[in-house]
């Protein structure tokens, strides 16, 4: 049975349509309001509060804690010190992405890994020879994310630490409502925002205290639809959408390397060994990447034109989508070259944006191709252009 999170007594009371989905076995709100757009807007205008408890969390302690994670993930953790955090992916020996998550350097010899999929076994398998203890604290810690322009001002009212000193992807132990937590300045929305790890017994207290401030800081509880829309604008990847874990598919064709996934920048190929490094070195040296992952923008005037063929006004999707959509080199749809993995009409940017997987020769900014769009059960080709990703990257995210 899908389980409630420790916030459920609060979140279920707010969930107007009782719309939930399964997130790693937990009930996660799809949306709280009947129209997810108001939640999306709250994140960009005020802030949104998300229950992110279903994330898996692992404490890695011991003299080799940093070294173990360095061996496991593609990011260079050498500069890591207590108080730093990193977003990273990790690979298998073939250099194919297994999962993504956060590494939080909590204290000397103490790091925390968060992941989307269960990762205990992966950690243990990699840890032979390292002087570490690994503990799965997925259920001993729950989480909320507060994301949006007013998130810092709101959180200031609840904590004893100086949040203006907390930089992007840094973390700190903090009392929130006099309860011990870890606050990290990170998130999945591409906005100013924080993730707070709390003990389950403190969940309701912290949720209530934050919600009591909601009217003053224009905060709303937000569900997965708003989260998906904001993460697409931020150009952030989603498992099972932009990639399938190499652990979860039997078919090589479905795996993808970080170089292909658009996160090659985080792989330190000339540095110390990490799982998958050699395969990635080879991929890079031989130019054998099959794909590149890029941001593209659709030409909406064509969608409008094709709607008018049915005497219909332009209709744009009201939510994001996460199904693979064919991309063609030509309007006649004879040369299939790739796929759109997720996309949305961005109400903020007033643009139709898509995260796309295409062959390397189409990677350059300004490259053009066609994305399939089905209107009234008829297939059309919509011109699309490669643009800069993240699509939305406000200065406040890092300010």
């Amino acid at each position, binding site marked *: 049975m899908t389980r409630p999170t420790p916030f459920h007594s609060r979140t279920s009371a707010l969930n107007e349509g009782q719309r939930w989905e399964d997130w790693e076995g937990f009930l996660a709100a799809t949306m709280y309001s009947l129209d997810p*757009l108001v939640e999306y807007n709250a994140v960009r*205008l005020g802030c949104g509060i998300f229950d992110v408890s279903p994330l898996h969390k692992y404490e890695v302690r011991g003299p080799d804690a940093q070294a173990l994670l360095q061996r496991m993930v593609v990011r260079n953790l050498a500069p890591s010190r207590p108080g730093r955090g990193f977003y990273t992916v990790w690979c298998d020996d073939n250099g194919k992405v297994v999962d993504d998550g956060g590494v939080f350097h909590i204290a000397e010899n103490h790091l925390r890994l968060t992941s989307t999929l269960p990762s205990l076994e992966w950690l243990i398998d990699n840890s032979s020879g390292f002087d570490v203890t690994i503990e799965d604290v997925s259920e001993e810690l729950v989480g909320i994310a507060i994301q949006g322009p007013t998130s810092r001002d709101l959180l200031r009212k609840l904590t004893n630490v100086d949040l203006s000193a907390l930089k992007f992807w840094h973390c700190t132990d903090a009392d929130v409502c006099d309860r011990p937590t870890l606050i990290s300045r990170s998130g999945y929305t591409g906005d100013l925002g924080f993730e707070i790890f709390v003990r389950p017994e403190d969940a309701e207290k912290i949720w209530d205290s934050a919600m009591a401030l909601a009217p003053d800081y224009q905060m709303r509880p937000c569900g997965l639809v708003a989260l998906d829309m904001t993460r697409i604008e931020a150009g952030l990847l989603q498992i099972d959408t932009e990639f399938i874990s190499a652990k979860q598919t039997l078919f090589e064709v479905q795996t993808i390397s970080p170089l292909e996934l658009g996160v090659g920048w985080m792989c330190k190929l000339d540095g110390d060994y990490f799982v998958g490094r050699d395969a990635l070195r080879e991929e890079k040296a031989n130019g054998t990447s099959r794909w590149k992952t890029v941001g593209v923008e659709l030409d*909406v005037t064509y969608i409008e034109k094709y709607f008018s063929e049915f*005497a219909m*006004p332009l209709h744009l999707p*009201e939510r994001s989508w996460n199904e693979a959509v064919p991309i063609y080199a030509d309007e006649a749809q004879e040369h299939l070259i790739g796929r759109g993995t997720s996309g949305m009409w961005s109400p903020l940017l*007033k*643009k139709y944006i898509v995260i796309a997987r295409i062959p390397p020769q189409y990677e350059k900014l300004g490259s053009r191709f066609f994305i399939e769009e089905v209107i009234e059960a008829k297939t059309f080709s919509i011109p699309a252009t490669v643009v800069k990703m993240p699509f939305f990257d406000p200065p406040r995210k890092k300010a």
Partner: protein
Amino acid sequence: MAETYDAIVVGGGHNGLTCAAYLAKAGQKVLVLERRHVLGGAAVTEEIYPGFKYSVCSYVVSLLRPEVARELDLGRHGLQIHPQEFVYLPMENGDHLLTHGDPHKTRQEFRRFSKKDADRAGQFEDLMYRMAFAVKPILGYKPPNMAAPSLRDLSTLKEFGGHLSGLGKETFHQLTKIMTMSADDFVGQFFETPIIRAMHSLSGVIGTMLGPKSPGTAYVLLHHYMGDLDGAFSAWGAQKGGTGMVSEAIASAARENGVEIRVNAPVSQIIIENGTAVGVALENGDEFYAKTIATGCDPHVSFRKLVDEKELPGDFVRAIDNFKFRGSSGKVNIALDGLPAFTGMESPRFLSGAIDICPSTDYVEQAYDDAKYGGFSKRPAMEICIPSINDPSMAPPGKHMMSIFVQYCSYDMDQYGDRDQQREAFGNAVIDTVQEFCPNIKDLILHKQVLTPWDMEQMIGLTEGNIFQGELTLDQLFFSRPTAGYADYKTPIRNYWQCGSGTHPGGGIMAMPGRLAAKEILGGKLVI
């Protein structure tokens, strides 16, 4: 040596800025001259009281054309509209009507009043949608000259005729009705509940010195549905930081394309040589010259103030003098110490959209009766917005900014004494009426700004304080806006063009007059 430009736009309102941006995109060297210290005209945000942003006049965005947002990339330049989720209508008996973004919830709410009305709500919305779709192409046309149509005019008319004939009988007949009926009669075909009727017909009289029972008001209803057509594209809602930020977004796009914008630069007259506009003179004596002069001001200012009467044909002058302004709306902006409590309100969230004070059509018609012969409504109809509920940039934490759009307040209010006394009497009537529906309002007021139509004229230059730069009645629309023969953005003076809301397709933060004018100035083709 005076500076020369390809084009000068008089007035930095949202249409003037739009026109300038498109001209600059086509490579022209453009100068915008704004009289005030701040851009936006009636779409302006000012911090009148410290920490509080007032959307001084225009307060909601619903009609902004998607093509303008797209072509000028306004999303990147700061356009950010929070959609309106609720309309809350408190009633005199302490009950209220609440409409939701979700149609099922609205239907459920209507059922409390009338099961018939609940069932017809969907039918009404569908019809309005179909009709808006039917007339929408008009928004993109340069109005044809009906007396002497050009080839392009004829093809426009043919295209539109073809479009209309494809509508189907029901839609076409309803379209002829909506063009001629009163808002109340039109809405009355569907609804029996007074407050539901009033809610719909209120939008038919906004900005117009007519009552909901006056014939011709139904059309304005339709005007308001145009924005709905674009669905996801242009939400009906509040711009982040106030409506002035829409103007700022357009200005930012204009500047990026090379437009020079000067504020505190009041134009005193258009310099005309041999029937051709060649430049403008500022009040301080500075002169600027250009091949094209476009005016974003209303027709009265554009032709009766900025231009010497001798430069214009007599019949044109008469037509402009007969163009109806008749400001009918006032505005009260309030800084509040906390969130007001409206009667019957279940959650403060329900106040985040619009709060309409219009318990019945009779209430609104009575308000009209009060102001018909001058003066203002003793108990006015109002649309109240509290944008700070969603937007933290409008007021300090815990405080709120309230915008009250008031219908009716006429330009002539001599019976109340001098202008200061008039303003005070009007402001008091508004607050007293709000208090009937929101008992704690007076305890929360930190600061209040009251604007009568006369104040809007003084401040923004809107003649007689008409928010649309001329009433949106059928006789003043399309090929008659502002007057027959000059609806094509041209004027009797060569190289002097119109680009304000006094031209087709009219007022509201639509930005279409500015775009269409630029297109005509550029010979019928925009550079996008």
